[in-house]
């Protein structure tokens, strides 16, 4: 028997003119989960969100929320909270009136509205802004008010469209963990759209990866990261170098499956200077450093190994490596893929019993 989903899409299609934005989208979300819809721009993630909200109408397929097919229910009757990318706070209403808007529409009694608005302001920690207008707030504050406004009418489902796109990097970091805590405190089922994989991996319970109008993979951040299902996910997640014929590398010569291409992530490459102790002397390649780049907490190296450029990292504390230097490169793991699927392949030195660990 299938799981008891709170939100479900079944075979949803949507086109804008000749452009097909959603192709046969089906997925289910359990109650109380925080879901990240991740994909490059134009991959159809916002369209999915807008169809859920009722701001777009699906051409075919069913959208089910809490057991009810909502295909023909207008946005205003779906009872969904929505946080817009640019917040869309009403400029001519004060912060108080903005948060009270949804409650007034539902004709709550005045006293209850006041209590609820104050509760929301306390929740987002902006009690003293009630009388201000949205344009008197900072970007981060506006985001919080937009969040409070969406949550005030106690929706069962909260949708957020690129919630962190309009704030600067420092505030974004703060808001991410803030939002995560806030949503688990309120316990509302939430779906947010993002093109930033770090954001999705850090914030979401589960990630849905979209590409060219299709869903590529659904899974926990860990699954997505460690077990990419499709060629797109293997290449999209992480800072991958793409290798055309991975069997050239030591430790991967006899790997099964028909795939020839692979994605190699920097975190699965260990770089040692000549003379440094090697963890796995077997299956270690040598390469020439072509470029080094300072990345703050680490040094990013571009190394040519057997005519292929790989990106690797070394810590600041490690002995410095210079351009032109020959180094030892050991690849722990690669994500091989053909046209349909992706496979995780480990270096033979890690799995075979005859490898020597010093």
């Amino acid at each position: 028997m299938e799981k008891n989903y709170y939100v479900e899409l079944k075979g949803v299609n949507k086109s804008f003119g000749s452009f097909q934005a959603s192709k046969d989208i089906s997925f289910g979300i359990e109650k109380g989960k925080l879901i990240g819809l991740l994909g490059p721009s134009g991959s159809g993630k916002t369209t999915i969100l807008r169809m859920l909200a009722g701001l777009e109408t699906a051409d075919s397929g069913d959208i089910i929320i809490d057991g009810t097919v909502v295909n023909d229910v207008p946005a205003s009757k779906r009872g969904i909270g929505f946080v817009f990318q640019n917040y869309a706070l009403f400029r001519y209403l004060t912060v108080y009136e903005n948060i009270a808007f949804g409650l007034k529409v539902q004709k709550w009694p005045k006293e209850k509205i006041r209590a609820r608005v104050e509760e929301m302001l306390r929740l987002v920690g902006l009690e003293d802004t009630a009388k201000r207008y949205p344009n008197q707030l900072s970007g981060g504050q506006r985001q919080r008010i937009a969040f409070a406004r969406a949550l005030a009418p106690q929706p069962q489902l909260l949708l957020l469209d690129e919630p962190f796109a309009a704030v600067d990097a420092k505030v974004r970091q703060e808001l991410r963990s803030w939002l995560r805590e806030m949503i688990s405190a309120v316990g509302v089922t939430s779906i947010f759209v993002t093109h930033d994989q770090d954001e999705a991996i850090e914030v979401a319970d589960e990630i849905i990866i979209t590409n060219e109008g299709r869903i590529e993979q659904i899974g926990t951040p860990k699954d997505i990261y460690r077990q990419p299902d499709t060629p797109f996910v293997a290449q999209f997640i992480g800072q991958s170098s793409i290798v055309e014929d991975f069997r050239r590398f030591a430790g991967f010569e006899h790997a099964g499956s028909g795939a020839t291409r692979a994605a190699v992530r920097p975190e699965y490459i260990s770089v040692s200077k000549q003379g440094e102790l090697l963890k796995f002397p077997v299956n270690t390649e040598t390469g020439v450093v072509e470029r080094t780049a300072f990345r703050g907490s680490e040094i990013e190296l571009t190394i040519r190994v057997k005519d292929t450029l790989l990106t690797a990292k070394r810590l600041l504390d490690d002995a410095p490596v210079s351009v032109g230097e020959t180094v030892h490169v050991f690849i722990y793991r690669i994500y091989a893929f053909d046209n349909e699927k992706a496979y995780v392949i480990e270096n033979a030195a890690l799995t075979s019993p005859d490898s020597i660990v010093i």
Partner: protein
Amino acid sequence: MKKKRKQRRVIPGFGLSLGITVTLLSLIVVIPLCSLVVFSSQLSFSEFISTVTSPRVLASYRVSFQTALVAALINAVVGLMIAWVLVRYQFPGKRIMDGLIEVPFALPTAVAGISLTHMTVDSGWVGSIFHKFGIEVAYTRIGITIALVFIGIPFVVRSVQPVLEKLDPQYEEAASMLGAGRTYSFFRIILPEIFPALVAGFTMAFARSLGEYGSVVFIAGNTPFETEITPLLIMSQLQEYDYASATSIALVMLAAAFLILFVNAVLQSRASKIVSGIG
């Protein structure tokens, strides 16, 4: 001593363009207006008061303000509707309709007056319909109002239209996500957004209607105390070479125009304060 460094502006030509602006404003606007005061000062203060408050003049103010206000209100509503239709909907002939809006600007006002009169007299094809119900249009205040609606409509449409075009659809989407119906979100969200533009259009239409002469004189019938507008009264004083009286009444109209534009300016600055987030 530290010499103060000369601040250079990035955009050149500030001095020259400001000079031209001030000169032209003085020549075209300020000096003619000052001459009004100079001419009126030929009268003593009590003479001035008795001229501008004589019963016939007072009656003309009433006619002018009443008809101009009603016309501007009608224009605000109808103009908003026209702007809404032109921005929000696609239909054949939209471009032509959009172009027609400016016709009242381009047409000599006397032409508009004559054709409107011709249409609305008892035997005219619009006037005859109203005549059946016992309503006279031409040569009454209704006629004046119709003429003023005609000349004022572009002001409202052209001030509201661009604001409506730029209005982010996300505001309406946000309102509907919060459960608001179309009517509610129009009055609570869209109307406040376009209100400053609507007020600007309304005041311009109102101010223009107060001073309108050409299109009104034909349709008004110009019965003293009934359908005689203030600009016509000024005109008739001039024809009697009574410049001082004419300019005195004109001065009152000028004061009224200033007041209207001032109220508009106050409303506009309040709105822009909210939007810019200052204060």
